[in-house]
């Protein structure tokens, strides 16, 4: 990996919420084309880390660099639109009373400005792209359903599809398989593996079967600190990691 380009780098990243130190001095590099899995027990700071990278929270100290630019205090919409980081939230976070197709259309990149959206006309290429994403996430037959009428797993897929539609340089998936059946979890893993190479992906996950299915390189968080980093087999043997996390499995 050392020869490929660094896409995301965080330096000494810390954040404090009214006295509670959620993250402390995290240093991390994500390389282009990589699929990185972040694991750690509840409250380890994984989601907080995602919040910082996507502009939902601002850090108290440290810097975030993406694709050569400093994005430390940029707004969420700027990070999404200009720097192209797409995020799937923990638990499906979609537009409930809109159809599945509308959800994907809204997410499709390139028309986020007000004036562009007023004069937007659906081209064949746009329609084709939306349909292609709907097929990839296996919701094409459900395209006219309201998002709130889908099953939990389907809603997760819908949100994953929305992130694809953004065509981001970096895809962040926060617990993409939460609440899914074993079969759905496996399918999700295959979807993500298909994307590997084309996109840079960070996945936060609890399900160890899923982690084994997709992961190569793993980062472990504990108590807001980076505990270990390395290939999955190596990390699994790390006694510290076993002590805090893997023993639960």
């Amino acid at each position, binding site marked *: 990996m050392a020869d490929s380009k660094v896409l995301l780098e965080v330096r000494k990243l810390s954040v404090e919420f009214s006295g509670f130190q959620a993250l402390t001095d995290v240093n991390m590099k994500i390389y282009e084309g990589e699929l990185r899995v972040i694991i750690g027990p509840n409250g380890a700071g994984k989601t907080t880390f995602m919040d910082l990278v*996507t502009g939902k929270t601002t850090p108290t100290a440290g810097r975030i660099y993406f694709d050569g630019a400093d994005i430390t205090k940029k707004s969420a919409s700027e990070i999404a639109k200009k720097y192209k980081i797409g995020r799937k939230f923990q638990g499906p976070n979609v*537009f409930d*009373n*809109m159809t599945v197709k*509308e959800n994907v259309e809204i997410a499709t990149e390139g028309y986020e400005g*007000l004036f562009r959206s*007023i004069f*937007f006309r659906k081209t064949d290429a746009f329609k084709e792209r939306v349909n292609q994403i709907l*097929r990839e996430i296996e919701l094409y037959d459900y395209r006219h359903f*309201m998002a709130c009428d889908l099953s939990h797993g389907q809603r997760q897929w819908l949100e994953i599809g929305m992130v694809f539609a953004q065509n981001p340089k970096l895809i962040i998936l926060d617990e993409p398989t939460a609440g899914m059946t074993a079969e759905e979890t496996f399918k999700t893993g295959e979807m993500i593996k298909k994307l590997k190479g084309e996109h840079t992906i960070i996945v936060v996950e609890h399900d160890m079967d899923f982690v084994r299915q997709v992961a190569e390189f793993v980062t472990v968080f504990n108590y807001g600190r980076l505990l270990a980093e390395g290939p999955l087999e190596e990390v699994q043997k790390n006694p510290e990691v076993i002590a805090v996390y893997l023993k639960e499995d």
Partner: protein
Amino acid sequence: MRERLKKIPVNKYIDLALFLFLVTFPLYQKTYWIYVMSGIMAYMIFALSLDLLWGYTGLMSMGHSVLFGAGGYMVGISCAYLSEASWIKYDRLPWFLTPLSSEIGAFIMALVVPGIIALFIGLFMFSGKIRGVFFSLITLALAGIAELFVINQSTYTHGDSGITITSRTVLSNSADKRMTDFGFYFVVFAFLLAAYLLCVLLMKSRTGKVLKAVRENESRLQFLGYKPASFKLFIFVVSGMMAGLSGVLFVRVQGSINYTAIGINLATLVLVWVAVGGRGNLTGAMVGTILLQVAETILNSTFSNISADFAQYWKLALGVIILIIVFFIPKGFVGTLVEAEQRRKDRNRKERILRKGGVNGNG
């Protein structure tokens, strides 16, 4: 062809029926009802403008009458000035109202001033990230303030007596150019149709979908690269200008304007019309307005006929009816219909998917 007809949602048929009803209405009705219905159509434009804001974008403005009244008062002040009403004590209009000294200027001001008011309210609210119930409460307070403001500014607004308007064409403010009730009915109708078509086009566009997304999940939208504040500001200004237009038309129909047109009373009424009809499908706003306003007119005259003492209680009866409706069908008349249709279609689709055998769709 039949397939395409099936795809049209039920509320579009109601719209068509409604417009057919409205366009033929004056042909067989007495002048009184033509006059009443003209006013109702102006109110329908107002309800549509609130539906854009509340039904589609989720911004429940409890003071939308401020924008309606601002439009109405522009024409009112212009009319009073041009026809040299007896109560006028000033010689010249203040500099920011000088466009009101021409007839076209007054019409433009009646659209622009509500737009500017909406722009400023919107800038203040949306950049300050005021959301939900706080937006509603602040707009409600604004309606109260506006009411007091026009009463206090009696030099131009004639205080709580209001302004009487003698003319009735879209642009003219002089008394001798007066259209008949019958003629002006169709002027209002044309504006209603245009406003409706504008709303349909806007909501069918990508902007309309983004506005729905603002309603559904504003914070999620930011992570897709949108700036929800600019979309909210845009629809607030469009809605404000539409409300201003409806104010102009209503004042011309009614022939007068006073503080009730800008205050909390009307602001609450329009919320009720939209709630009873159903939010977020345009049809509901129009149907709700027409049902409740016709009911009001009939109840009012019925109660007055029983006895003069009894007359004031028609509002009580209407209130009870509204409570019952909102209790039993919280989505409103049209909202309930649209939802039932959506559910039926969903069921059919589910059956089709199951028949195809499995969830995997490649078609």
